Each structure stands twice: as structure tokens, then as C-alpha cells.
């Protein structure tokens, strides 16, 4: 438990004056993510501790350096959880890094994303100002929703110091069912099921089988088993953990790993490589050596976007590229102006999201 706001603020103020870029680091578990950027490491992980948690309010507030595992274990003691099922990518994962990256796990299409659960946050801007946005209540429309803007901004708009999140009860019972299918069938099955009034809470296709998770009460699950075909996967929880943490065998090699965000029922894209579908088809992991341009063109044609999620070094030596999907110029202009509004000297995670104009 420690509040080092003043120390962090002084450090950012100095960096702002000296125009000295900072590389924000919580637990270091997601350092692989984003564009290469340099700067002095800004260690924010010591700013930790749960500040407020009242299970009846369904809200938790904690400092950003609080280990994610501490948050989740505290919630679990009261039968609650982070319903966006955040991946850790390493036990050192912190709350701040989780929100800054905006990652969500398999439950996301059915429960909501990391940003959906953000209610408020305290940030340290690139000007060295500490500002609170949002609040600690579930419904709040006062002021621009800057706290949700921080989710997925990779710290480029401010160092997250504190976050308030909505939490939900852990479902009473869950079951995982698997059905063998080809790709096209799998897309149909996952989306047809998602359109029916079923307590779906996960839908993955790993190239061989559709694996679906259902969450309900004991009796709800019993009733469901009578309606839905499929073999029950006894190691269900372990399967979902492996998919979420990218420990599933699919992820085990050094090929460039792409994250494609698409409408869930999008037909298979004609790209070479191997695939794993999460989020009922809306999140597609692709391992391929196809060129970034080919991947992006195919995804953009379907209205989606593609991120070179891991192993960017494969392309780094050969051609200039951006890890994140390029933006149309009008949208890019707004991004740059927003960045300037929060971080005029562009000292926070410079270039990590998009190239910053200095």
C-alpha cells in the first residue's frame, strides 16, 4: 500500500521541462505491445493499493500499480470478478497496465470490454497535472468521458494513477461445450448461438472445434445441457485461461502474431497462415508471414483493423511499419491534437501508439 503520487508528479514535471521522453512501466508484463519507443523508464508500479471496495456497490477503486492478481483475488473473496476477464501476460501485470492496454478476454462479447467497466480514473498528464475524471458510480454522464478514453490509449494521454471499475458477481455455474466444425460452420454456429437467448460467455474456434462457455445458475446450466449439443470439456476453466493468456498451443512460436478485429460473422479472409477465433469470430488471431500491407488491406476491406500484436521484430528490420492500423488523415489529425492537449511535449510513451510529431 503506498501512494507515491507526489514523487511521480515531480518526475513528470521535470521530464516535461526537460522535454525528456518517458517510458511508462507498471509490472512490465505488456512491454512487448505497441511500437518501439525509447525514453527513460518511468516506474509507476510502486503506486499501489486498493483504495475502496464495497461489494454491495459493485465498484472497486485501486491505484494503478496494484497487481491484477491482488484485485482479482480480493474480488473473488466476495464472489465477484472483473467481467472483462483481462489477460495478464505475466504475473506482474498491474491494474494500470491492464487498462492502458485495454485488453479483454473471452467473456468480452457477452459482458463488455475493459473500457466498458471503467467508471473513473485519476491521471497524471504530460504537463504533470493530476486530474480526476469520471467517478465511482455506475451511471455518470457529467463531462466528457475522458476516463474511458484512457482505456487502450497506452499511457500516451496520461499516466493512469487510479482506476474505478464496475465489478460483477461470479456466475454460480459454468460449463464448457465443444463441437467439431470446419471454419465456415464454426462461424455460423458461434453467431447463431450468440443471437439466441442463451447464457453464452465465451465462443472460440481453434481450427478443430467450436468451444463455447455458458454461465448461469445451477438449474440454468442443467436446463441448457438438455437444449445444446456438444461434449462437455472437463478442463473448461484451464482451456479459457490458456486462450486468454495465449498459452494455448496455437500461440507457441515466433511467427508474427496479428490481432484482427472484425464483424464476428465475417467470412474467412483469404490470407495464408493459421488462425484462432475468439469473441465468437470478432477477434481473430493470425500467425502469418504475409506482408503487413496484405493483412491490413484484407481486414480494412471488411471494415475492421489489424494490429501486429507480437513478434514485431520479424518485420522491423525490413520495412517501416506501424504496429497499429493506420488511420485516415482526418482521424489522425484529431489523435494528434488530443495527444497535444494531454501531453504537449509528447513525453509519455512517445511513438508507442502512433508516430508523434515533435
Amino acid at each position, binding site marked *: 500500500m503506498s501512494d507515491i503520487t507526489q514523487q511521480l508528479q515531480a518526475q513528470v514535471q521535470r521530464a516535461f521541462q526537460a522535454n525528456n521522453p518517458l517510458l511508462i512501466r507498471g509490472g512490465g508484463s505488456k512491454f512487448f505491445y505497441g511500437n518501439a519507443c525509447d525514453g527513460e523508464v518511468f516506474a509507476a508500479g510502486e503506486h499501489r493499493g486498493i483504495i475502496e471496495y*464495497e461489494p*454491495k*456497490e*459493485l465498484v472497486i477503486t485501486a491505484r494503478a500499480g496494484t497487481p491484477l492478481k491482488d484485485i482479482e483475488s480480493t474480488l473473488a473473496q466476495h*464472489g465477484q470478478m472483473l467481467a472483462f476477464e483481462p489477460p495478464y501476460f505475466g504475473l506482474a501485470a498491474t491494474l494500470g497496465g491492464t487498462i492502458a492496454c485495454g485488453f479483454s478476454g473471452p467473456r468480452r462479447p457477452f459482458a463488455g470490454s475493459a473500457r*466498458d467497466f471503467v467508471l473513473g480514473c485519476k491521471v497524471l498528464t504530460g504537463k504533470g497535472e*493530476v*486530474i*480526476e475524471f469520471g*467517478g465511482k*458510480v*455506475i*451511471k*455518470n*454522464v*457529467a*463531462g*466528457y*468521458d475522458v476516463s*474511458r*478514453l484512457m*482505456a*487502450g490509449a497506452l499511457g500516451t*494521454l496520461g499516466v493512469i494513477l487510479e482506476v474505478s471499475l464496475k465489478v460483477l*458477481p*461470479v456466475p454460480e455455474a459454468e460449463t464448457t461445450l465443444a463441437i467439431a466444425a470446419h471454419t465456415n460452420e464454426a462461424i455460423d454456429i458461434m*453467431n*447463431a448461438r*450468440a*443471437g439466441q*437467448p442463451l*447464457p453464452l460467455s465465451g465462443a472460440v474456434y481453434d481450427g478443430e472445434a467450436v468451444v463455447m462457455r455458458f454461465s*448461469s*445458475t445451477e*438449474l440454468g446450466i442443467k436446463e*441448457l445441457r438438455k437444449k445444446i449439443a456438444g461434449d462437455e470439456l472437463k478442463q473448461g476453466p484451464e482451456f479459457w485461461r490458456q486462450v486468454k493468456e495465449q498459452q494455448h498451443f496455437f500461440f507457441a512460436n515466433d511467427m508474427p502474431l496479428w490481432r484482427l*478485429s*472484425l*464483424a*464476428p*460473422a*465475417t467470412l474467412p479472409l483469404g490470407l495464408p497462415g493459421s488462425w484462432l477465433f475468439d*469473441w465468437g469470430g470478432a*477477434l481473430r488471431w493470425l500467425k502469418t508471414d504475409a506482408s503487413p500491407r496484405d493483412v491490413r488491406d484484407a481486414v480494412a476491406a471488411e*471494415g*475492421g*483493423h489489424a*494490429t501486429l500484436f507480437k513478434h514485431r521484430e520479424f518485420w522491423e528490420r525490413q520495412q517501416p511499419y506501424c504496429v*497499429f*492500423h493506420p*488511420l*485516415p488523415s*482526418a*482521424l489522425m489529425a*484529431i*489523435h494528434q*491534437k*488530443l495527444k497535444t*492537449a494531454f501531453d504537449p511535449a509528447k513525453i509519455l510513451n512517445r511513438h508507442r501508439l*502512433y508516430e508523434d510529431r515533435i
Partner: protein
Amino acid sequence: MHQQTFQKPVNDLHKKPLLINALRSGLPDNAILSSEEALRPYECDALSAYRELPLLVVLPETIEQVQAVITACASLEVPVVARGAGTGLSGGALPLSNGVVLSLAKFTRILGIDQLNRTACVQPGVRNLAISEAAAPYGLYYAPDPSSQIACSIGGNVAENSGGVHCLKYGLTVHNIQQLKVVTIGGDILTLGGSGFDGAGYDLLALMCGSEGMLGIIVEITVKLLPKPEYAQLIMAAFDDLAKAGKAVGDILAAGIVPAGLEMMDNLAIRASEAYVNAGYPTDAAAILLCELDGCSAEVRQQIQKVQAVLQQAGATSQRISADDAERELLWKGRKAAFPAVGRISPDYYCMDGTIPRRQLPYVLQRISELSGEYGLPVANVFHAGDGNLHPLILYDANIQGELQKAEELGGKILEICVEVGGTITGEHGVGVEKINQMCVQFSPLALQQFHAVKQAFDPQQLLNPGKAVPSLHRCAELGAMHVHGGKLPFPDLERF
């Protein structure tokens, strides 16, 4: 009727003919309203205490026409106020005397429903309920259901980030929108979000939700559709004490249940409603809770039992469980008609919209009741209890000199109590012009400054709905100084900007 000028009167009348000329090159003549009688219906939204005639009203029907309007207004530096159905409760669509009202009322087409992807692509003027009606043949619906859903438009819902009675389980508008097309003040079209569940870069989709028309003009919306739940059942529980009812709400949530809706009404609201719709509410109860559960039938039946036990434990004096959908709808009808029902027992009412941490409910209700006595104005409480969103309805008579001002002042105090206990001044109605002073109480000067910087990034000339939602620091400083000098504003007749 009390009138209030919200904007600095700027003598921009000379711009009117220039503007009409500029607009005519991009719009048909009948899409430009300029006579006083044609402008009159646009002088206010549902917060009718604030009225102002705009310079012009334009009714484009294509995105290109919206771009033409924006380009013409930007070149002449004329402010633009976007307007959907005009059902907003905070004066967000209040015209500016030197500005144009851009009505999106002609954007009423549902562009497509994608059954497999569970989305609907709609124009901003489509009514909220019309989306669910169009999706019904596919077994799908659009979840957010503000009480004005028969009339309010989806574009306005996005601009205000509207809620409803089901948002504890299904979220606000921001949680149910997948993509937006927005015309910027520069005349560009931005696509925010994506065909999937997220877009590249900053989450501008989230930022746009609830931005009250200050960052861009929303011209197309892709909403998420959900499968209609198989089964729903409602419990109505009566309590002889408001605090007990308030505690029961937390107990239900702590028991691991997330109801589809969890509403509370106090005795005055119960009696008004019952007299109006005869839903069978117990008129002697201090409070009732309405708790709806939905899902598959086995799940709902099991949860109903659990909730019954929790309510019993919490001291409910009686419980009634809906036997069928007709009874469930009847019990809801009383709640949904609460506002008009209160309208029947009082010449006027003023609806507030604060949100509080639920544990503070007994304290806040006590304070409201004290203020009600102090001001001599009755207050009926209707409450989205599950998510802590209070709707105190202040009863007054606008024909009595000074009563509206008293009601507004009482309303302002209630909002300040909400902030004091860690809540917010608006849960779902937006700030608009109505709560702009309370923004100074809720946010620090640094936060307000940062909000202005965000606006600047989108709208450097300050032409999109200027002066709404975020107060100037000057305004706050002025009010802050007055607070120090004790409660009541000196010189109440002076205009304050």
C-alpha cells in the same frame, strides 16, 4: 413562463442573409426555416424553462447536406446546435440566438439489420423504440430503454449517453454502440469504432457518447442488438421504511444477482402512480422495490427464489411476483408512468438526475426531505436503485411567482449533496445548460480546463453547441465566490454567463 438567456447576446443578425445564401447552395429551400413562427417549435427541448429563438433552423436529409451546413456555418463562424427529437431534459438542444439549429429529424431510415452480426445500422433521427421493433422479427432488440423511448432519437441517445431502467445489467448507450459516423466542424466524415467490437487508436467512440453535440455531428450509428431474453419475471416488494428498502438493494447485488431492472419509488410517487394507472401498488408502503430478473426460465425461477429470501430477510412487508407477462407489464407501467402521474398531482414538476453510491441512500433521502421542508416544495422520489441513479421530482407551480426559481435552487442543492457523498450531478440526462453550475462543484478547475482542451482538439473555433455542458473557469470562479458569501445568489436578476 420563466425565460433565461443562456448565451451572451451577440449581434449577429447581419449574418442571417449571408448564411441563408451560403446554405442555399447546398440545401433545398424548404430545408431552411427562418420565419419566427417556423422557428418557434425549436425554441426549447424538454427542459422548457429555458427558451431561445435560433437564427435559423436547417433540416438536411443527407450527409452531404450536413457537411454543407457545417461548412457554411464554419466559414461565417456561426454556432451550430444539433437537435434530435428534442426530448432531452437538460437543455442540451437549447438554441443559441446567434446560432443555427441543425435538426436531424429527417434522418429516419433504418439502413440495415445484420442478423448474424447482431447489429443495426441506423440514421440518427430513428426513434429508440423503432430499432427494437425492426429487430423483433429476428428475436433481437436494442437494450437501452430511456423512458422517452417512444419518442427520443438514437442520435440524441448517443449525444447524451442515455440510460434507462435496464442499464444495470445491459449498460448505457456507450456500451451498446459499435460504430459512429460523425461530421466534424471541418466538414470531414470520421468513422469511429469498427465493424468488430473495437476500432484502431484512441476510443473516440466512447468520448463521443455523452459529448452533448460539442465534438461533432453524429450522422450514422451502428448499434449492438441482443437476443430477447427467453423469460422475465418481476417481484414487487413493499417496505415500511425507506432505509430498509435501500439496504435490500445492496443485499440483492451482494447475493450475486444482477437484476435486469431494480427500481424504487417512495410513498408520494407510489400514491401518484397508483391513482393514475392502478397497478395495484400498496399505497401505505413507505417504499416499493421492483426487481426484474430475465434469462432462461430455470435460471430466472432459481433467482426469484433467492431474491425473495433476500427481501424477506431485509424486512419486506409484502411481496408480489408477476404470474405472467401481463402482470409484469402492469407492475412496470406504474413505474414508467411515474413522471406523468406526478404531473397530475402538481401543476409542474422538475426532475433531477443525480447518482450516488447506494449506501448513501438513507442519508441523501433524509437530506432531500429536510430541503423539501425548508423550501416548502414536496419531492417525490423515483430511483433507478440498482445503479444508484436518483430522480427526485420537485413539485411546484410555475404560475406562482418565484416557485420555479425555488425549485431550481432546491434541485441544485440536491445535486450538490450527490457530489458531497461521492456521486455525480447527472446519471443519464446530461449537463446541458441545466447543471452547468454544478459542474463547478463536481470537477476541479484542472479537469474543466482539460475538458475545454478536448473540445479544442475537435472544434477549435468553438462552434459546436458552445457554452453547454462544460462551464468556463470564469463562471465557476464567480459562482464559487458567491457560495462563500452564503448560499443565495446576490443580484438574481443579473445575467450570468
